[in-house]
């Protein structure tokens, strides 16, 4: 049986008197994990785009010669 520790959403957010400390840590955590996820996914798709452009350039050079 789940027993919630807070009577309302406002009480959960306040976590009196430690809400600002607890939520700033979890906000920072979400920011770091979200930022890292974006970074690694972007790096992967960027690598594919760069290689595709490189092949297109090489293909262009081959057709010119």
């Amino acid at each position, binding site marked *: 049986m*789940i*027993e*919630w*520790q*807070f009577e309302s959403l406002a009480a*959960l957010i306040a*976590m*009196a*008197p*430690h*809400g600002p*400390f*607890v939520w*700033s*840590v*979890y906000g*920072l*955590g979400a920011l*770091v*994990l979200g*930022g*890292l*996820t974006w*970074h*690694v*996914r972007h*790096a*992967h798709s*960027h*690598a*594919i785009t*760069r*290689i*595709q452009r*490189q*092949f297109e350039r090489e293909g262009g050079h081959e057709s010119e010669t």
Partner: protein
Amino acid sequence: MAWRWFHQWGSPRWFYERASRWQAWAGWIAVILLAVGTVWGLAIAPVDYQQGHSYRIIYLHVPVSFLAQALYLAMAIAAAVLLVWRMKLADVAMQSLAIVGFAFCVLALASGAIWGKPTWGTYWVWDARLTSMLILAFLYLGIIGLRSAMLDPNTAGKACAILALVGAINLPIIKYSVEWWNTLHQPASLTLTEKPAMPASMWVPLLINICGYYAAAAYLVFASMRGLVLHRERRAQWVRELVGAHD
């Protein structure tokens, strides 16, 4: 035959294809475990009679602190593999582990500092555990900086591997700092050998989040390594075929 599994890691293509599946599994496991563990820790776990609600920071701080050290250990093992067997994938692993490990180390330091204010009355003290964790962050930063400062990737890889191995001496110092010196920092909340001091309603969500953050780290490292493998192998035929299939 016994070494076949090890030699497979020498093939970037073998890794790239399999890591795609590992990455997906790790990502979904991380999302599920972190959702359950974090909601449980923040809203369902009982309040601590001494620290009040501020102790709920433990559900992020402990997992990321474990990981900051575990990822450095993994990086040191990859460094040894690179120096002994000259495996290209070990160098890629080092690069990815350094970035993810540094981010987790900064998060461990920041969450610890924020937790310190309501608990100790200060954000920072120069005690053994905090200082050795700060040194770990500088070691990560040094390895990232060293690689970007060197033009030749092979020389950069070897230099980073040596620095990673030398820096591994800091890991036992971090682990035993709370026993060797007087420190404000509490001893380990969870160990493999002893029964936890806190009740199950508190340590079960912590264990779930530890597993969740490990899965998240695995997702991030695999995803990062796949991008780096593609870049390094950009002239290989299999990459040409793979990128062609993306059109």
